[in-house]
């Protein structure tokens, strides 16, 4: 079979997956909430705490405020697409139909993930970067590296959740449990960061945050740029990671995400018997 011949079934699966994942008006609803959330939660005043003084830190702070509002919408979308969408396809035998296509199994999973995560990511980043351009082009563009690092650090944990959900959905061949685990993991990280904060303050050691940063490097980045704003010195965490340490935490977290996705690919290609 020629390359063109291989490409067509892939596009067929991708088109079908996008059609299923983003039935009218899901895409439009999520785009609406992304745009609204991005502007409603954007804040420049959070960048004005005494600890945040450099333009680079302001760029981080503004980008972070924009992400925080829409990240929950992004997580909901990938929860729906990965757990519910793929789970449904496995339950209804649609994946079995795809297996009859002249396409490798990893191609089928790639098409499904491109639709479930890729399109969502494209929508999220497209709206966010346009919003940053509308709001503060002179803050963002001179510090594009900081902005990209902030997005990379913030998206690492949602991608980790989606990898775990994907593995669970493939293993259990239904999306319900994967969906619940995804929600629990998202809430658990917020609880864990609260606990880590008190442990770090009481023991005067940043170890708890260093451990958390391996799976969610956004904490390392936050402390690199001065930590939480507007809190008393009594509650300060004695941790100022360097930029290279922050990059290392981000790299480590993406290493974990990549290994989980590879595991899912191996399971889908070799072990999944339908």
């Amino acid at each position, binding site marked *: 079979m020629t390359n063109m011949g291989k490409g067509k079934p892939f596009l067929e699966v991708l*088109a079908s997956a996008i059609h299923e994942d*983003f039935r*009218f*008006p899901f*895409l*439009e*609803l999520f*785009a*609406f*909430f*992304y*745009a*609204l959330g991005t*502007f*409603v939660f*954007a*804040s*420049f*005043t959070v*960048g*004005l705490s005494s600890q945040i003084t450099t*333009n680079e830190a*302001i760029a981080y702070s503004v980008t972070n405020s924009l992400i925080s509002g829409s990240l929950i919408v992004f997580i909901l979308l990938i929860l729906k697409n990965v757990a519910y969408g793929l789970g449904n396809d496995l339950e209804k035998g649609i994946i079995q139909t795809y297996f009859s296509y002249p396409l490798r199994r990893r191609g089928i999973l790639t098409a499904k993930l491109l639709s479930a995560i890729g399109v969502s990511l494209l*929508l999220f980043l497209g*709206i966010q970067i346009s*919003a940053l351009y*509308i*709001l*503060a*082009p*002179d*803050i963002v563009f001179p510090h594009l590296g900081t902005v990209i690092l902030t997005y990379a650090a913030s998206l690492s944990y949602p991608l980790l959740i989606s990898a775990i959900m994907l593995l669970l959905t493939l293993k259990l061949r239904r999306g319900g449990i994967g969906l619940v685990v995804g929600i629990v993991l998202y809430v658990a990280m917020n609880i864990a960061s609260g606990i880590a904060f008190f442990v770090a303050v009481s023991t005067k050691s940043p170890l708890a945050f260093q451990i958390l940063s391996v799976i969610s490097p956004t904490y390392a980045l936050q402390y690199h740029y001065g930590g939480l704003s507007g809190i008393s010195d009594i509650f300060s965490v004695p941790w100022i990671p360097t930029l290279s340490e922050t990059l290392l935490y981000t790299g480590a977290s993406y290493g974990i995400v990549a290994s989980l996705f590879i595991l899912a690919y191996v399971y889908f290609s070799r072990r999944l018997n339908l």
Partner: protein
Amino acid sequence: MKRWTTILGRGGTTLIAISLALLLVSLIPTIQMFSTEGSGSLSPGGIRILFSQQNLNPQQEVQIAVTVEGKLTVYLLELNIELEFNPETGFVQRFNSTDLQQILQENRDLIIWEHEVENGDYKRSYTPTRILNATLIVYNPSDSENAYLDHSVSLQSSLAPGDKVRTIAYWAAPIGVILAIPWLVNIWKERKQS
């Protein structure tokens, strides 16, 4: 062909959804953070500081309206005017016409905008694209004539620069409609057939 119609159509409906969100954002009312009004005369070569704000950010807008009898120049400078404590008069702003002349001659990059007003009204608003210190000053450039000034300055805070967001929404929505129409017509035809 049908696939392209669907892709463009969904792109169009997404663009319409984003436009609606932007329109909603632009309709959220602004909060007035500060406002000042006043009037008075300015002697030849004299200056008056109408407004000075540290850390003016892209979610804030300075609105200015002046009525001038005579000739005055309005300057918005990227500058933080420091206050100096005087035991007799209290805090005074440490900026005079010599400082302004120095900026005009040596540091013109500090001028965000300037406008000369002669016997008339002038209105302008300004939203920065980064965080900066801003100071609004009026200067009487005349050597011999006094000028009379009536001014109103306010600082508004909003989610996003309303005009910019509204303009994008007004452009994006029709483009979205144009892209979506063939896809919507297709759907309508399919439903009619079935």
